């Protein structure tokens, strides 16, 4: 059944059940209200649709009321019926809240795992490879020059492995976040963008304390993605990263004065690549939102908002 058809059907039954309840406000009619709410939930109706159904049923009931006294009585009793019908939605709402808390705990756990693996790749595997390099250098010293070609190839492969492990570790969790903290890590990123692409970047961080690791990482990744886009594709002359804590959320905004984006295509068409999609997924998993807007006449303002407690 389509949502509209379901809403009409539930609406008709709701109307009758409410009239019954108003005529005789008893437990049987209240159970009817609860059953209807449960049915509305199963049919996929939303809480706003139910509220609309209720409001229209109350209006009809008031029209049918014979006199002012009866109308007064209707107005003071209809809420109990509405609350009954909403009760199954309350259960759904509590389930959603619990699911969000579980999702957040899982995110923290995954972030913790990523951190440990990143450390193992970066630090532990890095040390082992470094000692292997030394062994190779020692072995090479004992060999005649014509026999070291093979060792040189091994060394090149080792360097390649080292490089890949470093990249992988960085992808999992940028070590700079743990070494320096978010503010300094962003400042360092800005320096890198500036020296590599010639795009000056101003960074402002205003936080009231440390953020959870998973949020830090998401803010860092967002800034990284937005600045790389600005530097590579937008022709911007300057960019700005602002991170601040407001009430119970963290807001990160990355603005540039580049070519902006196409209103019709928005985020996807004018800025291809998986990067921004990934930002949306990461931020969405934390219960946050992503907004892409123009920065004045030209340029882009990418803003993410992540709640600190769900």
């Amino acid at each position, binding site marked *: 059944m389509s949502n509209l058809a379901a809403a009409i059907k539930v609406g008709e039954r709701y109307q009758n059940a409410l009239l019954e309840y108003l005529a005789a406000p008893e*437990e*049987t009619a*209240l*159970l009817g209200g*609860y059953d209807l709410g*449960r049915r509305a*939930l*199963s049919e996929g109706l939303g809480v706003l649709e139910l509220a609309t159904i209720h409001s229209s049923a109350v209006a009809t009931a008031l029209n049918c009321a014979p006199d002012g006294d009866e109308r007064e009585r209707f107005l003071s009793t209809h*809420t*109990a019926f509405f*609350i*009954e019908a909403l*009760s*199954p939605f*309350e*259960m*759904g*709402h*509590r*389930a*959603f809240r*619990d*699911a969000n808390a579980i999702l957040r705990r899982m995110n923290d756990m995954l972030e913790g795992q990523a951190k440990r693996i990143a450390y193992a790749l970066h630090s532990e595997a890095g040390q082992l490879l470094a000692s292997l390099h030394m062994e190779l250098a020692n072995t090479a010293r004992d060999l005649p020059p014509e026999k070291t070609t093979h060792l040189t190839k091994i060394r090149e492969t080792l360097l390649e492995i080292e490089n890949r492990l470093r990249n992988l570790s960085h992808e999992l969790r940028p070590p700079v976040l743990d070494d320096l903290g978010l503010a300094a890590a962003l400042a360092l990123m800005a320096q890198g963008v500036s020296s590599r692409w010639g795009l000056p970047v101003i960074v402002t961080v205003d936080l009231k304390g440390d953020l959870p690791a998973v949020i830090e990482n998401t803010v860092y990744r967002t800034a990284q993605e937005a600045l790389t886009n600005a530097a590579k594709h937008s022709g911007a002359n300057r960019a700005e990263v602002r991170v601040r804590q407001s009430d119970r959320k963290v807001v990160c905004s990355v603005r540039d004065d580049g070519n902006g984006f196409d209103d019709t295509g928005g985020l996807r068409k004018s800025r291809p690549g998986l990067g921004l999609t990934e930002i949306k997924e990461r931020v969405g998993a934390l219960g946050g939102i992503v907004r892409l807007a123009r920065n004045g006449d030209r340029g882009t303002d990418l803003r993410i908002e992540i709640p600190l407690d769900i």
Partner: protein
Amino acid sequence: MPNEVRVKIVSHADIVAARQEARALAIEAGFSLCDSTLITTAISEMSRNVLEYAQTGEVTISLLRNGTKSGVKIVVQDCGPGIADIGQVMQDGYSSRKGMGIGLPGTKRLMDEFEIRSKLGNGTTVTMKKWNWNQ
């Protein structure tokens, strides 16, 4: 009003009776309209299970007093086939409810205390308590 009421659950009409008794005790315990509704919702959900899976059962509703705090205790008992895996039925989305957070796990979220005991072939007992925190 007695502090404990028992209602046999054999038909849909008995759910109405159980809700009525629970609502009266909830009002006596000082619960708000919203919290009284959550209590009757818990009764409806559990009694519905009794009718669906065990056909008959009994709901016992009692008033709780703990110092100045009051509340209600609801015990829903049946002699049905029992539950093989309680952990499974307490998961959201188990059975045909499409994961909307209702049923057993949904009811647990409405109450302050919730305990379910069951043995295959020996029925199921759900014990729930809700305290009035606005006193």
